[in-house]
């Protein structure tokens, strides 16, 4: 199983300010070229390429070739998996408590 390895790569990719900035840039406007991304970062083109490579390895960025251009897209699927694995299960008891509170208050009012 490659799961543990994949998760390590994913968290490592997220553990960097410039890479998170790249994800934010793609979230604001998807489908950008490397040149467009470089304009927003105070970094060499080579530096940006290395960060993009790590994001691609973690499957956080997907690329599509359009003619001579390579377009970069934010791929939120691994983030959804993190959400399900690390967040959703901790939310459930609280949502249940809220739901019960709502029910009790509404019954009391009626």
């Amino acid at each position: 199983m490659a799961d543990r390895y994949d998760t390590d790569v994913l968290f490592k990719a997220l553990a960097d300010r410039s890479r998170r900035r790249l994800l934010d840039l793609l979230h604001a406007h998807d489908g950008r070229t490397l040149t467009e991304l470089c304009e927003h970062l105070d970094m060499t083109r080579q530096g940006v390429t290395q960060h993009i490579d790590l994001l691609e390895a973690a499957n956080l960025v997907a690329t599509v070739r359009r003619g001579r251009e390579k377009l970069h897209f934010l791929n939120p699927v691994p983030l959804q998996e993190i959400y399900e694995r690390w967040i959703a299960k901790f939310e459930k008891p609280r949502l249940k408590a809220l739901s019960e509170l709502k029910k009790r208050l509404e019954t009391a009012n009626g």
Partner: protein
Amino acid sequence: MARSTFVYVTYIRTTPERLWSALTTDVEFMKQYWFGTHCDSQWTAGSPWKMVSSTGQISDAGEIIEADPPRRLVIRWQHQNRPELTAEGDSRCTIELEPIGTAVKLAITHTIEHEPSKLIEAVSGGWPKIISNLKSLLETGAIVLRDAYPAAVSR
């Protein structure tokens, strides 16, 4: 022309054939990971395609533009229920399957010639949950999310 696109990619430990049927003909399997929804089509180029909710409502419809099992599927896709989404016209959903080692790379690209697009905004929220559920159902036999929007407190 301005366009809106999203590209979602995941790697699933399965075979292209199994994944293809999970995305097309295996309706009961589809309902398990798609929150009760299924797609109805003959899955050949030119045949009509529609998405049917658990209550039988047709949410989206169109036709199959390309079908090359188990590698590539292109759907002409128009939303049917919300007028502002229907007004944006046809979108195009391309589903590509590529074997990589013991897994299959699944890439879903959804595009519309509109910028910004309410349709793309609407479908982009749903796909990650569906793909994530599909992945766990194929790999572990169980789904992770039972409801598309589990945060609804009123239930």
